């Protein structure tokens, strides 16, 4: 097991324990420390999700920027859904397109696919090597480069810095 994966898993579990208990008493903190030290050893013998995470200051700044972009896109996508659903003629133009990604690390790809699913009008169907197949509710371009630019590049520039 890589130490970085273990460390991040430990921090994540400990924070979740504190949030669940919602208090900072001594016994709760000690018990949480014990549990979150033991659990990654038991469950993640072969895990490697967090291994490629970049912990430099720039990456942390970019992750906040990414979160901000993502939330804006999420709200935008909901208004998009609302517009489509409420208009009587149901203006959709669906199709399945292919886009390319440059990301190699696993957690980066997971976050990219999740963000594609939650942004306006797109839904990840499958990841094969470097291509992602996306169901697009309103196809604007069938070309690979063009749709990559429209769908992926907005997030990828942050994720590339965060996960290398």
């Amino acid at each position, binding site marked *: 097991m890589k130490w970085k994966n273990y460390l991040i898993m430990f921090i994540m579990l400990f924070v979740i324990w504190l949030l669940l208990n919602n208090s900072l008493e001594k016994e709760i903190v000690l018990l949480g420390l014990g549990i979150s030290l033991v659990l990654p050893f038991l469950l993640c013998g072969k895990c490697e999700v967090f291994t490629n995470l970049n912990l430099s200051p720039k990456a942390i700044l970019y992750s906040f920027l990414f979160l901000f972009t993502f939330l804006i896109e999420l709200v935008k996508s909901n208004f998009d*859904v609302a517009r489509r659903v*409420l208009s009587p003629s149901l203006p959709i133009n669906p199709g399945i397109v292919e886009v390319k990604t440059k990301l190699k690390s696993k957690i980066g790809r997971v976050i990219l696919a999740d963000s594609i699913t939650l942004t306006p009008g797109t839904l990840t*169907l499958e990841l094969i090597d470097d291509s992602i197949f996306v169901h697009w509710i309103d196809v604007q371009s069938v070309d690979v480069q063009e749709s990559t630019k429209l769908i992926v590049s907005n997030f990828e520039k942050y994720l590339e810095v965060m996960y290398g």
Partner: protein
Amino acid sequence: MDTNLLEIIGGFIAIAGSIFLLLGSIGLYRMPDAYNRIQAGTKASTLGTILSLVGLFFIFPSWFGKFMVLILFVLITNPVSSHVLARAAYFIKVPLTKLTQVDKWKEHRDIDESRKAHLRKVKIQKEGE
């Protein structure tokens, strides 16, 4: 007065969240095929639940922890489950609607299949020789 105002803002945010939930289910009802339904349902139910929880957080700020865990959990799991479901729907050949413009994945799979068939043919020929 101050806390009262916060509570009222929270109530309105919760109403906005429930309206998004309603829009999602209307989308679920109106869309023509399974993939579009998954799109409408997932997006609206994710943001709707998150907004409801944020609105309730304004009313009871001391419940911060549970709301935060729930929001994170919904945000991580909902896209994953919809992705797995959409992939399953594609594999069991749930029909796409007639409005569909293009299906790149099918082309990709066809190319893959034909390449494999070609390789098999070459191999058989070699064995034949």
